[in-house]
C-alpha cells in the first residue's frame, strides 16, 4: 500500500485528510460515523480568548452548490476549552489542531500562548480571515501588513510547535498574503476560508442572514479554491493545506495535484458525516490504480 503520510511544517500526519474548523464541532459529534483516529488531523472549532455568543439566527442559507454561514465564532473561550473540552478529546491518536481567532493582535497571541503548553495539541491554525475580526475596517487577512502582524505576534507566543495560518480568499492576490505570513515564520498556510457572499429572500425583501453577508462554502467555491492553492503553492516554500468544496476523494486529489500537501474537509461533513473516511479510502485506491508509492509524489504534479 502506498505511503499516505505527509509532513506539515514538522507535524507528521498519517494521511493528508483533516477536518475544517467550524464544520466538525469538537470531533465528538462524529464518533458514531467515523473513526477519528484514522484522520490525518482534526481541526476543531474556532476558539477565541473570551467567550462569544456568535451572531443572531438565521445564520445559514443554502445557495447553488453551497451554503452561506454567519455563525460568528460562537465558542466558550480558550479557558473553558482548556479546562472542560480539551481533557475529553486530547487522547485520540489523530493530531488535534485548534483553530484560533481574535479581535486584535494581542487576543490572538494570548490565546496561542495559553494553548502552547498542552501536549495534546500539536498545532494551531490561525484564522486571519474571519469577517468579524476588524483592523481599521478590514480583516487582518486582506492586507499583507495585517496578516504579517498577526503571524509575527502568534509566532512569538507559540514557538517550536507547528503554526498554520489560514488565508482569506477575498483578496486580489492571495500569493502576496501567503508570502507575507511565510516571511513571519508560519510553518504552513491553509486556504481557503469562506468567500464573502450574500443572499436575499425576494418575497420577504430582506437578507437571508441576520448579518446580511456571510461566508460561502461548499462545492460552488472549489474552482476558486483550487486556483488559489495552485497560485500559493508556486509562491511559497512552506507546505500548503488545501480546502474549499471538497466533497469526495476525487476533489481531495484535485487539491493535491494543484499543490496542496494536505486537505481539509468542511461542508461535506454536513452532507455525509462519514465522508472523511471515504476520502482516505479513495486516496489509497487512487495511489494503487495509478501506481503511486508515496502520495507526496503527486503534490503539485500537473
Amino acid at each position, binding site marked *: 500500500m502506498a505511503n499516505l503520510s505527509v509532513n506539515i511544517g514538522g507535524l507528521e500526519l498519517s494521511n493528508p485528510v483533516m477536518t475544517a474548523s*467550524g464544520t466538525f464541532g469538537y470531533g465528538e*459529534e462524529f464518533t458514531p460515523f467515523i473513526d477519528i483516529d484514522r484522520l490525518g488531523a482534526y481541526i476543531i472549532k474556532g476558539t477565541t480568548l473570551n467567550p462569544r455568543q456568535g451572531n443572531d439566527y438565521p445564520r*445559514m*442559507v443554502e445557495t447553488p452548490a453551497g451554503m452561506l454561514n454567519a455563525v460568528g465564532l460562537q465558542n466558550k473561550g480558550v479557558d473553558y476549552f482548556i479546562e472542560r473540552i480539551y481533557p475529553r478529546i486530547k487522547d485520540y491518536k489523530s493530531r488535534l489542531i485548534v483553530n484560533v481567532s481574535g479581535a486584535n493582535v494581542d487576543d490572538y497571541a494570548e490565546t496561542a500562548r495559553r494553548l502552547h503548553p498542552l501536549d495534546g495539541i500539536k498545532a494551531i491554525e490561525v484564522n486571519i480571515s474571519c469577517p468579524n475580526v476588524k483592523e481599521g475596517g478590514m480583516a487582518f487577512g486582506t492586507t499583507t501588513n495585517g496578516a504579517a502582524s498577526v503571524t509575527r505576534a502568534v509566532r512569538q507566543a507559540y514557538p517550536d510547535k507547528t503554526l498554520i495560518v489560514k488565508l482569506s480568499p477575498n483578496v486580489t492576490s492571495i500569493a502576496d498574503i501567503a508570502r507575507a505570513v511565510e516571511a513571519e515564520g508560519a510553518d504552513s498556510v491553509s486556504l481557503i476560508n469562506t468567500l464573502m457572499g450574500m443572499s436575499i429572500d425576494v418575497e420577504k425583501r430582506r437578507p437571508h442572514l441576520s448579518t446580511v453577508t456571510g461566508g460561502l462554502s461548499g462545492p460552488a467555491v472549489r474552482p476558486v479554491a483550487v486556483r488559489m492553492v495552485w497560485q500559493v503553492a508556486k509562491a511559497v516554500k512552506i507546505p500548503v493545506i488545501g480546502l474549499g468544496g471538497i466533497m469526495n476523494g476525487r476533489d481531495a486529489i484535485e487539491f493535491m495535484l494543484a499543490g496542496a500537501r494536505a486537505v481539509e474537509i468542511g461542508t461535506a*461533513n*454536513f*452532507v455525509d458525516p462519514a465522508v472523511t473516511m471515504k476520502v482516505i479510502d479513495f486516496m489509497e485506491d487512487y495511489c494503487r490504480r495509478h501506481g503511486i508509492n508515496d502520495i507526496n509524489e503527486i503534490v503539485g504534479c500537473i
Partner: protein
Amino acid sequence: MKQVKDFIIIDNCKSGDSYCRMVLSPADGSRLPEMLPGQFVEVGVETSGVLLRRPISINDVDYEANTLTLLVRNAGRGTSALMDMKSGDRINLLLPLGKGFSTEAPQGAKLLLIGGGVGVAPLLYLGKVLKNEGFAPEFLLGARTAADLLSLDEFKSVGTVHVCTEDGSDGVKGFVTAHPCLSEAYHRYYCCGPAPMMKAVAAVARRNGTDCEVSLENMMACGLGACLCCVEKTVKGNVCVCTEGPVFNINELTWE
C-alpha cells in the same frame, strides 16, 4: 446511536401536489434504531439545486413491520423531489436526531397535542407512544382547509380529535387558539406548527399555567450539533436546536 443509512421506499402516497407520506425500511434489512417521538431524520435529496440534507420529523414508527413514516409538505426544491420519489427508490437518512417530547406525566394527566399544517407530523407517533403509556391523548389539529388536514383517520384511531380550519370547511372556524377545548384544563400542551401558531399557543399556555412543549423548525445544516447554524436564543444563551431540541419547553425559550 446515530447512524447514516440507506432506506428503501416501501410506499409514497401523495395527497395532491402538496403532501406525501413516505413509508421507509432499511435497505440492508437491519432493524430500525430506537426512535423517540419528536426526534427527526435528515434526508439526503439527490436533485439539482440541493446540497444539504433536509430535516423531517418522525411521523410514525412500526418496529414490527420495521418501517418508519415521514409526512412531507412540498415546500421547495428538496421536498418536491421527495414528492416525486417512487416505491422501490433508495433514500439516505441520518437518524435518529435531536431530543424528543417528554412522555412522563402524572397518571391520568390530560394531554393535548396541538398541530398546525404539516406540524401534525410528529404528533402521530407521540400520540401513539402516550397512548401506549396509558394516557388518553387528545389532538387539536388546525389547517387552512379541510383538504389540508392530514392523517385525520389515523389520529382518530389514537384519541379524541378536535379540528379547526381557517376557512371553516371542517371543525371550528379559525386558528387553533380559537378552539373552545383550550378553555379546559390540561396537564400539558405539545405543539408543532408554524411559528406564529406556536407562539400563540405558548401565550395561551403561559396565561393558563399549562406546561407546554413546542417543536422548532430552525434552518439546519449538519443536524449533529457541529455547525452551530440552527441556534435558538434560550435562557441559557444560544443553543443548537438539532441537539438540544427540536423540542423545547416554552420556559426555556425567550419568546416575548
